[in-house]
């Protein structure tokens, strides 16, 4: 169980700085997910924590001890790579035992730990095989097993599911979730660009963009109270509808008028927001056509994507090219070309100021 503390961590490649001072504390036994679009620096940050890249500035502490210049093995980390990175010339058993053999563990102890890990991951029948004789999912399990055997202080995952097909991905995700339960004392850090993985696995999510931390919080915090426009649109699928709007105070209440939409009356919001331009955000799943809440938008249905239990309805409103997306129950009959009215409850609406920062309502 290791606690991590990152203080003003920076990383430059030559003159190009890719991480601009990351501050983060990770509690012992926590499962933290780094998420962000490609190029945001999440994998680089993971490699800095792993000790595979040199830290350009700031300090990294494990349990209060600075480990900036310690090797990966000295830090006591284990890592699962996207490409599995199994040694092709070694059997599954040797792959899993390699780290412990180098660490000088006794033969019996190694055998016991490898068998144990293999049992957990159900790869015991393959111990004598070479990696090339395994399927993608089996290989990834071996890679996870290799990390378990080392009994690490910090367990790192670098996009471990990206090379698997959709069905295997779900299955392996569940296995990782089980692993998290089983190894509750081990701190785990998981990098992904897939927000579903982030939402389902994480105790806390760190959203990164362009080398900065945008927000840190539990999955539900990020979903319900995104700190800014970026997080609001990144978390949740399909992403939040954002529409430019005008705000006008009316006593303690606020009247918001989205472009191409109807006025919405937000009681109490007048205390925190002044008059002027504002960004109005509402999630597709919060829009209804049943007339609940206040009607906001009206427009033509241009596309319907039926997913079975639900359907995504793209609505074009007057004066805008950007269609609104509404996630409606699958049983409703919505025809392309129909004119519909979308409503929303005032308490699910999010407002963002001109800089994209969320306004606390």
């Amino acid at each position, binding site marked *: 169980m290791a606690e991590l503390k990152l203080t003003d961590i920076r990383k430059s490649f030559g003159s190009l700085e890719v991480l601009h001072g990351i501050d983060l504390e990770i509690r012992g036994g926590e499962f933290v997910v780094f998420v962000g679009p490609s190029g945001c620096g999440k994998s680089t940050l993971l490699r800095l924590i792993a000790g595979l890249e040199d830290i350009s500035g700031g300090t990294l502490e494990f349990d209060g001890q600075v480990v900036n210049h310690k090797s990966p093995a000295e830090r006591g980390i*284990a890592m699962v790579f996207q490409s599995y990175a199994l040694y092709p010339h070694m059997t599954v058993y040797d792959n899993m035992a*390699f780290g412990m053999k180098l*660490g000088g563990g006794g033969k019996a102890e190694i055998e016991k730990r490898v068998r144990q890990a293999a049992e957990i991951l159900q790869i015991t029948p393959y111990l004598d095989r070479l990696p090339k004789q395994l399927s993608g999912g089996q290989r990834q399990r071996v890679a996870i097993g290799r990390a378990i055997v080392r009994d690490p202080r910090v367990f790192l995952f670098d996009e471990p599911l990206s090379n698997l097909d959709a069905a295997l991905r779900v299955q392996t995700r569940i296995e990782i979730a089980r692993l998290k339960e089983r190894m509750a004392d081990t701190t785990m850090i998981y990098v992904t660009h897939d927000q579903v993985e982030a939402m389902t696995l994480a105790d806390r999510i760190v959203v990164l963009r362009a080398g900065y931390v945008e927000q840190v919080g539990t999955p539900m915090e990020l979903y319900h109270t995104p700190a800014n426009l970026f997080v609001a649109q990144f978390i949740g699928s399909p992403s939040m509808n954002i529409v430019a709007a005008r705000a006008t105070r009316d006593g303690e209440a606020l009247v918001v008028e989205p472009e191409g939409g109807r006025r919405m009356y937000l009681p109490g919001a007048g205390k925190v927001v002044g008059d002027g331009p504002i960004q109005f955000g509402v999630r597709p799943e919060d829009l209804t056509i049943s007339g609940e809440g206040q009607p906001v938008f009206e427009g033509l249905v241009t596309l319907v994507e039926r997913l079975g239990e639900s359907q995504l309805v793209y609505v074009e409103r007057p004066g805008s090219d950007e269609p609104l997306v509404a996630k409606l129950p699958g049983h409703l009959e919505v025809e392309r070309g129909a004119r519909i009215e979308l409503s929303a409850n005032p308490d699910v609406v999010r407002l963002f100021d001109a800089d994209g920062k969320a306004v606390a309502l």
Partner: protein
Amino acid sequence: MVDPTGITLHGEVGAGADGGPRGPRPRRRFSRRNIFIYGTLIVVSVYYLLPLYVMIVTSLKGMPEIRLGNIFAPPMEITFQPWVKAWAQACTGLNCDGLSRGFMNSVIITVPSVIISIVIASVNGYALANWRFKGADVFFTILIFGAFIPYQVMLYPMVIILREMGIYGTLGGLVLVHTVFGMPILTLLFRNYFTSIPEELFKAARVDGAGFWTIYFKIMLPMSLPIFVVAMIIQITGIWNDFLFGVVYTRPDTYPMTVQLNNIVNSVQGVKEYNVNMAATLLTGLVPLVIYFISGKLFVRGIAAGAVKG
């Protein structure tokens, strides 16, 4: 033929090694396409094999028969005397012990040169590919630049260096020269091969606690057999066939086989003994020939694996 899927699998010598085309046999064996392909191949191989044939045939004839002038005719009376003479009795200057002395010299030169140069170059290439130390690029550029400097420029400076070191004219001196001159191209070869091995393997090994040498011996080496074979072939044939360095940096009693061959074949005194010359040439060429025959398949695969980044 090398199975194209075998090329991309690094270090997996087993893959596709059974060779040959897969799937059902083509129905028409004498299609126009096959006739054209095999016809061309046969013509080209005859073109290359004819000189070899003439050499072998001539080396097995006696001088009277050679003087008849039918160079393509098979020997009427096979004699191995020219081979014996070429190996043990032919004279170069004052020595009359044939090529045997040169053969031993060449072995003593080639074996350590090949081993030392490959050991150093593979570690160089590994360090350059995986441990991006400060100045690695500059070092690499300088090394590669070395490959483009004509040997002639360095001949005399090298003589002075060897003289100052006190090893001019010795076999050790020539071993040093071969090792140094093989370094740029071999390092390039190894670096490119190691670069093509997925970086994550290297990182996984570091996470597992392996250091510089452990990764080299336990991870990189077992995965790089093909490129070691390629390097060995390049070095063995290159050093064995070398004439220039041999003639410049050795003395008559340390001449390698190629220099001795030249002295036998080009001697201006006495009768030209074509049969002995042919036998001597074949003897000298035998080592690279055998190497190619044994490892031709591995050679092709190694070259391809280094070139195609996978």
